[in-house]
């Protein structure tokens, strides 16, 4: 079971290593998951991303790899938890509220890209 799951910190290490595998001086940036302190990712999919990063660097013109996580569903419903914290650090009362967060779709990261190779699984139009 351990191998089926990749911890988030390990994901970051793996994808950075994949970016620098062919040319160690390749610049690297990952963004989009900053609000997750901890998460589990499917190792098979992490492995695919590692391979795809390595594949992207096959183009000798690539100087930097960017890996951006964009929510699949561009309007996410959040629960906002408002907590009043006492001096001793405890919380006597919390108020919950709905919040819809509408953010640009993945197309926002694709402006001007000449070739888009969509390997996502699932049924799409």
């Amino acid at each position, binding site marked *: 079971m351990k191998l089926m799951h990749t911890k988030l910190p390990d994901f970051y290490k793996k994808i950075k290593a994949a970016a620098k595998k062919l040319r160690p001086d390749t610049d690297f940036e990952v963004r989009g998951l900053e609000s997750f302190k901890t998460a589990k990712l499917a190792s098979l999919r992490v492995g695919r991303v590692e391979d795809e990063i390595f594949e992207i660097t096959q183009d000798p013109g690539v100087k930097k790899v960017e890996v951006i996580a964009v929510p*699949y*569903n*561009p*309007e*996410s*419903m959040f629960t906002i938890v408002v907590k009043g914290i006492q001096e001793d650090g405890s919380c006597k009362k919390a108020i919950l509220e709905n919040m*819809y967060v*509408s*953010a*640009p*779709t*993945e*197309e*926002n990261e*694709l*402006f*001007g890209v000449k070739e888009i190779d*969509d390997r996502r699984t699932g049924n*799409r*139009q």
Partner: protein
Amino acid sequence: MSKFRYRIIPQGAADGIVPLNLVYIDKKDIDAAGISAFDACKAVGKALGDDCAAVNVMDMDAITVTSDGIVADGAVVALAAVDHAMMNKVFGFMNVSEITYSDKVIKDEPHMKQWLEDCYKGRKLFRGPNTQDRGERSSHNENMSMTGRIVNNNTGSETMNVVDMTEILIPFFGQYEIMTGGEVLIGIAGPVVSVGIGMVVSERHGRIFGSDNLGSYRAGMTAHNSGVFAKTVKQDYPVIASKKSVLAEYTLRALDIGLVPGKDIGSSPAVLSLAKAYGKPIAFDNITERAWIELESVGITRQWLKEAVKPMSRSEIIAHADEIIPGVENGKVYKVSDLVEFKEAEA
């Protein structure tokens, strides 16, 4: 590949007020070319290159219903968001299916008695998407298409650029005028419109709300439920509306058949002001206290509405609609022909 024409109100139109490209495709034009709404929207995206747009596909033989619960000529039958020649595969396009006539629609949604009138009887009805049309949007608050910078929301009547945070409202009668080459009133939505758009009716598959179940907001309630802050929601945003005389005409049709604001149709400032001027009843006690707080914050008070006034005739109301119906700040009337460019795309 076939060509078809589309209308575009470009970004910057109307003395710079329109913040983003608005595209309207007449279903007749794409049917004639054998092109689907989906392919047409994609083709417009490609035609616009690096630019972005909200795209509505319109069936002007059909009917729809405004957020007030007033039936209108024409309907949005598909909506899309396009950017940099892309249309998001899952969220970028939304079909709006026909709502077929049944006695249950009339029974469950009293404002739909308008559908029995000669001018609307037998015409196809489109309002908002059904569950299948919504697809993977089950968690979404409202009915929208999204691609890149553009969100085309509320079945095509509220559109925004979510990167530069500009936005424009195009209430349905404004879209009707765009499609028929009439005149539009363009200005800032302001506090009255901000309050008005929250005063919805209960429907299945409404333009804004309502799934397979009746929407939980009924006539007399406010969907904004924001007290004195409701008037701020769109107060700085532009709006493309019809002239108030057009809004008056359609609203009077609903009042003529005995529909009551706050009970059958929405209790927006516009509808309430028209009912007062026309001497028609208002369901004061059915309008909730939360709705009254919002209405009274823009001067639509119970006391004012209950003032004894000599009812005006239909023609008087239409002639004086600008004075009777509040809302839209610094509005200016534009000929649609001065705003719309006709272009061609290929699909």
